[in-house]
């Protein structure tokens, strides 16, 4: 009987330990700088002698973020193809090296190191989650290389080595709050995934609410990838809030909106403003669960500009008529063109010269004209609130009167003084 009791005790302990390890896996953060050690000096190994130049695309092609990041990869590829067909950058054809970030920040840091040091790319394009960007930042800074980051994010950051072509908070979250205030919203419930972006965004929302006489009636976070929303939706429903501000990321949105709809909450009774749901995510969530809900972005496929018409039709020609274009895809597409403009203005692929030339570079993007702000490496953007329509696209219901200057540290907002 001795053997029996040892075996009986061993298996539960082993399995529990294993469970703890597996649960811990997703949030494992090691020192990101260690993953991409600088090779001593910052001497660039970029080869500009041939008739082609290497650029790196770094997106999650696998893992929980793949649903979103593969679309960014597609539009980056489209931009590279167009630029090459048009004669390349400074007469050199782009040679794309693609790496998979696999939805893990440490992998992003490691792959960024590889793209810079081994592949000697002139610039790297990609990243999605803030955790991935934060992990890559020290790698790009220590190697003095360039990253173009195409996704809206929580602001409070500005690196010489990163160009941010997505919206910062004063181009997305604050306009969304302005819109809600304009609609008479008094109480807001905050729901987000438990990581950098939602936590910081909600800090800003709390400060805004306090300054504008709004009340935050609840603030809930779930682990990334979580699919159990019964309790949170119960809390949301019970709060009776005027609106929900949703910073959930990735697949969790599916479970959240399914549960939200199934307890009878609708856009009319309690609208949800989402900042991470674009055209691409709508079919996965199911149109019946999300039609009529609001989104905050700077670009929608339905925008009526000549540049957008060309972008959308080129994209559909390349990838199929059923594909849609979204804000991060447009920002990624724009980022490659902005880099091209910077390089051509500088007359060189040299990182220092490109950084010097960046200020004031502008591009006729699908979302409208965007201009690089050399002080903080962000770009001007026009905030737009959209509503999800019955055909799964998003129509603009509100638009800022003009492009908004990027202000990542919210220096021009008195109420935000305690945030950074």
């Amino acid at each position, binding site marked *: 009987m001795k053997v*029996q009791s040892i075996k009986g005790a061993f298996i*539960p302990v082993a399995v529990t330990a294993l469970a703890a390890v597996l649960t811990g896996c997703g949030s494992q953060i090691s020192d990101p700088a260690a993953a991409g050690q600088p090779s001593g000096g910052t001497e660039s190994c970029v080869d500009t002698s041939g008739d082609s130049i290497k650029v790196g695309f770094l997106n999650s092609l*696998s893992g929980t973020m793949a649903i979103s990041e593969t679309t960014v990869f597609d539009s980056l590829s489209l931009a590279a193809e167009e630029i090459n067909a048009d004669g390349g950058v400074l007469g050199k054809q782009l040679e794309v090296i693609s790496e998979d970030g696999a939805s893990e920040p440490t992998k992003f840091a490691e792959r960024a190191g590889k793209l810079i040091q081994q592949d000697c790319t002139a610039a790297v394009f990609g990243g999605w989650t803030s955790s991935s960007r934060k992990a890559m930042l020290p790698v790009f800074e220590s190697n003095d290389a360039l990253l173009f980051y195409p996704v809206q994010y929580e602001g409070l950051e500005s690196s010489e080595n990163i160009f941010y072509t997505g919206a910062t908070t004063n181009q997305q979250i604050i306009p969304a709050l302005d819109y809600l205030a304009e609609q008479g919203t008094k109480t807001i419930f905050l729901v987000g995934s438990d990581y950098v972006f939602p936590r910081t965004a909600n800090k800003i929302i709390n400060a805004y609410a306090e300054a504008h006489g709004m009340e935050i009636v609840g603030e809930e976070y779930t682990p990334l990838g979580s699919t159990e929303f019964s309790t949170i939706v119960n809390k949301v429903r019970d709060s009776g809030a005027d609106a929900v501000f949703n910073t959930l990321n990735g697949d969790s949105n599916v479970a959240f909106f*399914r549960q939200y709809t199934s307890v009878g909450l609708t856009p009319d009774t309690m609208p949800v403003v989402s900042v991470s749901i674009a055209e691409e995510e709508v079919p996965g969530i199911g149109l019946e669960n999300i039609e009529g809900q609001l989104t905050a972005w700077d670009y929608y496929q339905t925008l009526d500009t000549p540049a957008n018409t060309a972008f959308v039709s080129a994209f559909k020609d390349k990838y199929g008529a059923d594909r849609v274009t979204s804000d991060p895809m447009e920002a990624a597409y724009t980022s490659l063109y902005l880099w091209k403009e910077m390089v051509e203005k500088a007359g060189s692929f040299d990182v220092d010269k490109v950084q010097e030339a960046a200020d004031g570079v502008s591009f006729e993007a699908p979302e409208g004209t965007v201009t690089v702000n050399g002080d903080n490496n962000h770009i001007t953007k026009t905030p737009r609130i959209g509503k999800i329509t019955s055909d799964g696209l998003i129509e603009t219901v509100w638009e800022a009167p003009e492009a908004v200057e990027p202000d990542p540290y919210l220096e021009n907002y008195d109420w935000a003084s305690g945030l950074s």
Partner: protein
Amino acid sequence: MELLIGQMFAGLSLGSVLLLAALGLSLTFGQMGVINMAHGEFIMAGAYTAFVVQQALGSAGVSLLLSLPAAFLVGGTMGLILEELLLKRMYHRPLDTLLVTFGVSLILQQMARDIFGAPSVDVRVPAWLQGNVELLGAPIPLTRLFILALALTCLAALALLLKATPLGRRIRAVVVNRDLAESSGISSRRTDQLTFFVGSGLAGIAGVAVTLIGSTSPYLGPNYIVDAFLVVVAGGIGQIKGAAIAAFALGVLQSVFEFSTTASIGKVLILAAIVIFLQVRPQGIFTLKTRSLA
């Protein structure tokens, strides 16, 4: 009051999802002692079966009902193949099966990615499961009710199978004393295969159920496998009724924790509670009394 009922149902509902995910595991892990890390991927296979059936048939309502037996067969067949190819060579070597099946789970995830693509696919909820019924003012989602009913049905069917059929008697005999069962003329090979088939098939059914609440993606398995193991371990290895009680207890407990704190803290508390519980009762809620020496 309304909120209390909503929360109680949320707990039961979470418990039913846990039970579905763990029921098959309580057979393969509990009765046979095989640590099958690929169990989560059998759940995923069931979910994709629901997707394929819906794509083929178009109608969400009929396809949901048809995909239940289909997913059972798909999950069961995959389990049978795994058992025949790998596991039968390593019974009584729990750590080896753990590593091998973990490898298999990675292979299955990659296969799903290659076949269906990395983004999640949409399995539509049939019209008759959309919306909710009101219970004393609290909205009870129909999808959740369906899953609860499905979990209880599976539990009853499995209990019946073990208690009242010749197969069930053979399974129980092999669990209690393999050698004695064999010398009484029971083919333990055949019993093992059938047990694994049923256990993995139940994972397939769980897969169909989870398409109703979340997204269907290649990474669905790891979401459930840890919780499923926790249920089986807390319930007492080899005990179907233990698994059922543990699943609902954990579901209710988690929704209470989550309600009074936050989702992340709730998850921490539930793990802490299980660790403490297993310190006090390492054998789980129920113990299997056996005369076997091994």
